[in-house]
């Protein structure tokens, strides 16, 4: 169930970016990051930057995803119950 939710949310993020539904995409990214961590969003950001040709000048999304990963990694244990994180319930 957890994996299915992760796949669905991940797909929804990609689709939201492609459909230019940025507010919805942002919301999905936030939920996904809190629930499953932001590390898997980094390859996605690199792929999207590559798809839209952003590596020809400056890959903003990839850089932002790295910063976002650091931020979420720092924030998650503080927001969520630290015991659950330790027990691996909220782990990636």
């Amino acid at each position: 169930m957890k994996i299915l939710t992760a796949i669905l949310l991940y797909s929804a993020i990609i689709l939201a970016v492609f459909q230019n539904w940025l507010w919805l995409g942002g919301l999905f990214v936030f939920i996904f990051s809190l629930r499953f961590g932001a590390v898997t969003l980094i390859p996605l950001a690199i792929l999207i930057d590559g798809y839209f040709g952003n590596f020809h000048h400056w890959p903003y999304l990839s850089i932002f995803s790295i910063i976002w990963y650091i931020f979420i990694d720092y924030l998650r244990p503080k927001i969520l119950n630290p015991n659950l994180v330790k027990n691996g319930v909220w782990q990636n």
Partner: protein
Amino acid sequence: MKVQSRHNSSKKRRYQIVLIAVLFVVMGLFLPKIISSVASVLLYPVHSTSAWLNESSSLVPSFVRERISLANQIKDLENELVKAGRIDVTQERLVEENIQLRSLLGINTEERTAAAIIARPDELPYDLLQIDRGSNHGIEVGAPVFIGRDIVLGLVVHTAPNYSFVELITTPEFRATAFISGPDVVVNMEGLGGGVARVLVPQGVPMSVGNLVYLPSVEPGVFGRISYVENRPTQPQQYGYITPEIPISGLHRVAVGKLSQISQSAEIIDERIIELIRNKLQVPDVSVGTTSSSSRLDGAQAGVAEE
């Protein structure tokens, strides 16, 4: 001790992930074409789904598209409603201002007589109305008949003590001088019958649908809007057709003015036309920067003086 080592390993893992990600980004910057090709291949299913959502006529995508377009339409209509509300307020303010200015100039509002329509083109010949006010009520032959505040409908052609007949401006062979706002031309207007009048305008005059048509010889004399333009390049003139905005069958009451509301001399007609053109240049709610405009004006005046 254990907690410390777990914390350290987590930190180490974070550094590793960031390092690998930065490495990929730098690689991408050096090899943008390769990463673009890889991304295109991997994201092809997403691209296909996105294209399907945007272009397919299937139920789900069309539902999503229609919903979005309807939401946008609602937003646009709300904006237009706000704009229209503002325009209404502006119009109301201008009307009040006009009444005040007219009273300052000593121009009293013309007396009007309200009259109900008792017979219309079903029972009478077309373009003729019978109203329930006659000479006993002060109705004069030739007096203009209005709908609302300023739309001229026709002229009184016959009065009896208790009723009168009104001939509409659209009656065949009714001729009047009209002024078309927009191209700002004075033209001849003729009734065609059947509730339609037309103006004859020379070729090249940019007349278009929606232009207001005034009858300058009647005060205040809006007749209607151009509702259709017939323009054949081979003809020396173009025709603008005018139909009343309110259908004759929908009329219940009209206002009958006084004979003095019809101007007789050509000079007065010209004066009204000039006034209409002048009013057209007035833009409400615009404040002009006094410094720049006055300095420009001074400069212009100095230039004229030097010449």
